[in-house]
């Protein structure tokens, strides 16, 4: 039986309170690293646990922390990515509101391991209440001596702040986030240099997702081997799955990594809304290739989903039933990417703009079959020609929707209208 690790307290109202957190063993892991572990030992433990980033890319957290240069005299920064802006994703909000000190403790341990003296939680601007909750939790942590100077007599100093974004998906991308933290437009930077070497204010900077960081206290407490034993060894741990769209019980479900997508929808999600038939699922947030109803017997972990040509991404499964027009659904997504493109790279800026226009034509029955080919071409031209992965994120749905649902696109052309009269 799987015991919840990340969300065990979220339904308890007092869980926001530091006294509750302390009473239930909170901040023990942070105290343990301060007393007993060198920063590099912490990094090694996290590396051994195979904890992979929950923000989308699945990069091993311990490996990333190891990239921070040793023996330099610049300040280091730890940035917690709470931008939560990938459509279909709404898990970090739950952690921040339901168990904020768990998130804080993860940040503290990561900061210690990367020898960072300042940590910022970059939270999307719309999350006003969530930002207040974090501010209060931080104030409590200062009061109890878990933040500030010479923490718990260890000689380690750490300050932590909440930094609110202001409405821009691209600030979830780690270098866009850094620019935004610096008070600029969220324009992603060309890499290298990687943030671990030259990030915020050109100093070594580690960016990690909220959920990634929330895994850290339990790894320190129970050990890497315990963590690795949950789910597939190469992509292990407890995982928050987000389920939205045409299911009976949308929501966030904490289960081991590698949960079968079919079970997520039918067992945990209660099956399809109104008894309709499943048509498609985007398994990992809007930026990953779509799956057909025949493809959902798959384990939700980084490697298994990659194995069938999709991605785990942020594990935000968007479920669509057979009343959904796939052209209109794609149009909705491409509109999103066009709107959120920061405009720096021509292929992304122009490509998303073109793609949206062509899709609108197709959806309204004003296109020819040639336009479908053109759409495919436009998508292919964005791929791998941009500064950041937003361009690819737009190109991937285009390619996969066309590959798997081309007939629907053609039907729009042939009938001169949307066969389903969709209006998303």
């Amino acid at each position: 039986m799987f015991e919840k690790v990340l969300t065990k307290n979220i339904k308890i109202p007092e869980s926001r309170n530091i006294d509750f957190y302390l009473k239930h063993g909170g901040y023990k892991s942070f105290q343990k690293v301060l007393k007993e572990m060198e920063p590099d030992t912490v990094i090694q433990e996290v590396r051994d646990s195979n904890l992979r980033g929950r923000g989308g890319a699945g990069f091993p957290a311990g490996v990333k922390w190891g990239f921070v240069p040793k023996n330099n005299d610049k300040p280091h920064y730890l940035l917690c990515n709470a931008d939560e802006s990938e459509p279909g994703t709404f898990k970090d909000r739950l952690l921040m509101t339901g168990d904020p000190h768990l998130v804080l403790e993860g940040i503290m341990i990561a900061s210690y391991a990367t020898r960072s003296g300042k940590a910022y939680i970059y939270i999307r601007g719309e999350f006003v209440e969530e930002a207040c909750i974090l501010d209060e939790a931080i104030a409590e942590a200062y009061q109890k001596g878990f933040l500030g100077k010479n923490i718990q007599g260890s000689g380690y100093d750490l300050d932590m702040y909440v930094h609110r974004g202001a409405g821009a998906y691209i600030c979830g991308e780690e270098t866009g986030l850094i620019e935004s933290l610096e008070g600029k437009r969220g324009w992603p930077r060309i890499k290298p240099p990687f943030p671990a070497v030259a990030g915020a204010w050109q100093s070594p900077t580690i960016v990690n997702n909220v959920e990634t960081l929330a895994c850290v206290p339990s790894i320190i407490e129970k050990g890497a081997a315990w963590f690795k034993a949950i789910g597939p060894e190469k992509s292990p741990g407890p995982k928050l799955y987000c389920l939205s769209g045409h299911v009976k019980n949308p929501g966030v479900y904490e289960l081991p990594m590698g949960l079968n997508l079919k079970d997520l929808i039918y067992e945990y999600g209660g099956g399809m809304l109104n008894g309709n038939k499943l048509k498609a699922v985007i398994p990992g947030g809007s930026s990953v290739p779509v799956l057909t109803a025949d493809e959902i017997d798959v384990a939700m972990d980084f490697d298994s989903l990659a194995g069938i040509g999709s991605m785990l991404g942020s594990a935000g499964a968007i479920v669509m039933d057979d009343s959904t027009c796939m052209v209109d659904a794609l149009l909705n997504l491409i509109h999103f990417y066009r709107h959120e493109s920061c405009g720096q790279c021509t292929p992304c800026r122009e490509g998303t703009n073109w793609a949206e226009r062509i899709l609108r034509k197709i959806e309204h029955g004003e296109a020819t079959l040639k336009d479908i080919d053109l759409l495919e071409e436009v998508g292919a031209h964005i791929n791998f020609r941009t500064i950041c992965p937003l361009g690819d994120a737009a190109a991937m749905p285009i390619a996969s929707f066309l590959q798997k649902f081309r007939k629907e696109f053609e039907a729009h052309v042939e009938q001169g209208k949307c066969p389903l009269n969709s209006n998303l």
Partner: protein
Amino acid sequence: MEVKFSEAALKEYDAIVKKYPERRGALLPVLHLAQREFGWISRDAMRYISELLDIPLTNVLDTASFYTMFKLQPAGKYHIQLCSTLSCALRGSRQIYEHVSQKYGIGDGEVTPDGKFSLLKVECLGSCGTAPVVQINDDYYEDMTIEKLDKVLDGLK
């Protein structure tokens, strides 16, 4: 109207700038603060911020114009932001948009003549499990239906 922070806002401002190693880092929080103080961010407000932070006005303009949450024009007293991204769309956000638009006779990005309501379609609000989602000023309203939203809207003074 003179554009100037109140005493309380100036105190907050002092606390904000201490959090960042460079002054420009404080720009987003200071813009948020300005928006709270003045309701929106006018050119005069930008000038004021640029003087306070001692950074060029172009920097303030450049940043403020990038982010959708910064209002460079006055919005309604109640700023209704309707999520229109996929998970909400699958759950009927379009119908909600059309309803609100008709109810107040305003389209996307418009304000009612009395300045009470403004309407804006926004992208994913990070709450797709409780779609459709509407944000009015700072507050989220989730699992919305036309009926539920009407009740909320009609209750706004």
